[in-house]
């Protein structure tokens, strides 16, 4: 499986006109004939694009998980669909960090709530006492 789009120097989402122009521009006869044969026929292009999407995804996953040199990633596919490593990796660690942050927020909120509840209770009690002192002094 070769990456014809890359060889033609266009994007997958390129329009038919763009593809035709790129094919006309292409100098390599092998690439040119493959592109004409596959990208100019709707049904073939659809199937090719589907596999292309899968392979692009696998290339991405492999690059991010450090599997670009694994034994089953080789030949044409590995040459055309490997991408350079980027900073996006370790989703699991990211999830753990998120959960830890959520836990921290939760704990802080619980503390704040307790303080608020105590404060509210105390102020309610004092205000009730004050009211009784003012309006029913004969009770004391």
């Amino acid at each position, binding site marked *: *499986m*070769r*990456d014809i789009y*890359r*060889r*033609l*120097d266009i994007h997958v989402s390129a329009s038919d006109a763009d593809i035709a122009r790129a094919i006309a521009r*292409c*100098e*390599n*006869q*092998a*690439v*040119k*004939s*493959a592109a004409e*044969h*596959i990208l100019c026929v709707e049904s*073939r292009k659809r*199937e*090719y694009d*589907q*596999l292309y999407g*899968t*392979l692009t*995804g*696998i290339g991405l*996953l*492999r*690059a*991010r*998980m*450090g*599997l*670009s*040199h*694994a*034994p*089953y*990633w*080789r*030949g*044409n*596919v*590995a*040459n055309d669909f*490997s991408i*350079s*490593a*980027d900073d*996006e990796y*370790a*989703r*699991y660690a*990211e*999830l753990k960090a*998120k*959960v830890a*942050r*959520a836990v921290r927020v939760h704990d802080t909120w619980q503390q704040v709530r307790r303080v608020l509840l105590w404060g509210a209770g105390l102020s309610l009690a004092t205000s009730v006492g004050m009211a009784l002192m003012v309006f029913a002094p004969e009770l004391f």
Partner: protein
Amino acid sequence: MASSRFTPFERLLLSSRNEADTAALLLLAWLAMSDGQDALSDRKRALLDDLTGDFRHDHGHQLIVDLASTPDFVALQLAAEVLQRYYRGPRRETFLRQAIHVATHEGALAAGQHHVLRFLADLLGVAPERFEVLFRDVAGYPLAAPEDPSAVDHWQAREGAEPGGGARKKRRGADGERFRAHADDQESSDQGARAGRRQERQHRRNEHAKEEREENRQRRWRWRRDDTGHHERSRGGQRSGEGKRHHEGFSHEGFSHESGRTGGYANGNEKAQRALAVLGLMENAQKSDIKRAYRRLAQKYHPDRYHAQSQEAMVTASLRFQRIKNAYDYLMRQHA
């Protein structure tokens, strides 16, 4: 740090009774979906229902199906990491058996499923030799090389073979032609790389010898299968298995052949980028980084380390090492 909200799959994972099973289910669903058909057939749905029953978690599979059919590679990466973390030892093989069953459930493997299966094998660190044994065990026929829809011959062979009943013979012929055409393509494309060509010829000879041995093994094995009454199953698979091995040897073409090709797409910058990708580096890598990465990879993947293993492992290792070395040499020339 990306967005701090939890994605749907993360929520699912957190609420699941067993993280690893949820992750495994997503990966299996992805494998089932990458068969090149858009619609989720009833049989596939039944299969997924079946699988969901086996796993220990408390959720339905609707979200999983949605994620797998898009497919959402962020979720898939998370699932893969979880799997890598939790599945060790014999459990890996159990999972791979399940995966092979899912993939071969509806007849022959689609090209996409080939690649996904191989990714899963690599992910769990199961060596190709072991994985091929597993595949043969579960599917009843050997693992063939994936089809290549980027080759003209693939379409000619397929569309030529579709109407007739004598498809088998025609297909075989076409495969042979593809083999030759591919070879021609190779030869014409790397101008002046004589050493490379010689190496390739040597390699082809090796491949032929290997192929013959493989053929013998297959014959013996077919006989055994027939004996135990798995007649039809093994036949169907056999057909798809043979012939494809021909060009498998050529799928090993190294980085040098690729970079030697001057037509159309390959400008210097892109070549440098791909060389960096081979070494697993970022675009702004310095010369010292490149050297360090090369030394690390060379130590890790040097063919001598695979000496004790099978012939095939040696060949794979030396090709991989060749690719790394070619990338390094290219980058050093650029930086000189």
